[in-house]
């Protein structure tokens, strides 16, 4: 368990070092994810159900929502700033987010149908 957590933090740490040394516009944890992914391609046993790394990752990802709560609470302080800029910002957020969801899923579905990629159906 501790070894698995150390591995996750280690990947993030190397990722942080790499982005800073190379001046990349990508956050360290994203590089860490790429590194861990490459590692898992070489040693797939670590990702198997029941392996410590799979267990720790499973717990973290099952409660990903929790990890956004502190940052989410922080924005309530700035709610005034959103309203102060008039309805434009709020309308832009709502409409643009809905439009992005629809366009992304639509293009995915249509291109998948064109290249005959098997869908993973929702019931």
């Amino acid at each position, binding site marked *: 368990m501790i070894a698995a957590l150390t591995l996750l933090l280690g990947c993030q740490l190397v990722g942080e070092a790499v982005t800073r040394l190379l001046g990349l516009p990508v956050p360290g*944890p*994203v590089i860490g994810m790429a590194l861990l992914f490459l590692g898992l391609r070489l040693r797939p046993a670590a990702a198997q159900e029941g392996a410590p790394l799979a267990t720790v990752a499973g717990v973290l*990802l099952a409660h990903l929502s929790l990890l956004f*709560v502190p940052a*989410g*609470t922080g924005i309530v302080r700035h709610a005034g700033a959103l309203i102060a800029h008039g309805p434009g910002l709020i309308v*832009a*957020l709502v409409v643009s987010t809905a439009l992005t969801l629809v366009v992304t899923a639509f293009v*995915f579905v249509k291109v998948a149908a064109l290249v005959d990629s098997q869908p993973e*159906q929702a019931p």
Partner: protein
Amino acid sequence: MIAPDLARVETLWVYLAADPLLWLTVTLATYVVADRLSSRLDRHPLANPVLIAVALLAAILSVTRTPFETYFQGAQFVHFLLGPATAALALPLHRHWPLVRKAVLPILAALLAGALTAVISAIGIAAAFGVPQPILASLAPKSVTAAIAMGIAREIGGEPSLTATLVIATGILGAVMVTPLMIWLGFTDWRARGFAAGLAAHGIGTARAFQVNPVAGAFAGIAMGLNGLVTAVLVPLILRLF
């Protein structure tokens, strides 16, 4: 008899209010309540656990007059786990790699279309409402994960703290809207639904996707990572047009 007790309670509160233990525990407890509520309501999109927990905590902080900085002393331990959790996204990516490899073309097409839509529609609508330029620069990267978005905003003359607010608001909005929108449009492919959630609503959308389906979660994680890269390149180019 009551007076000394009250004094003791006050001393206790002074100690607790300044100690990270209290606000860490309150953060976890609030989330447990929010998650139970969300689960009891069959993960209804409006009963989003982030939304419920944030609303409860905001109320608690306001009633107890606790400054956010004091709260964050405790909550930072939870916030810190975002880093290792992001690295942990490698596991679902690895597990569903055969599916991902087969969907390279849909992924690339949806990535480009989604990233362009996110940036252009946001600044287009806001500009039409007369929102001034520095605010547009803060709004442009709203769909990507906070760390990348704040970096982009800084680079193009936006205000990173406003960007962080817009990013989190976008995440919550996207996580709430994704399921009803996908059902309304009849999109049943978990890959497409997850990819849209991660692209439009970064980590909070990804959290929603994992709640609904593991394949959706894996594709959301990919979308979040890729959109961060693409948006960092696109935003400076697109903003020149506005």
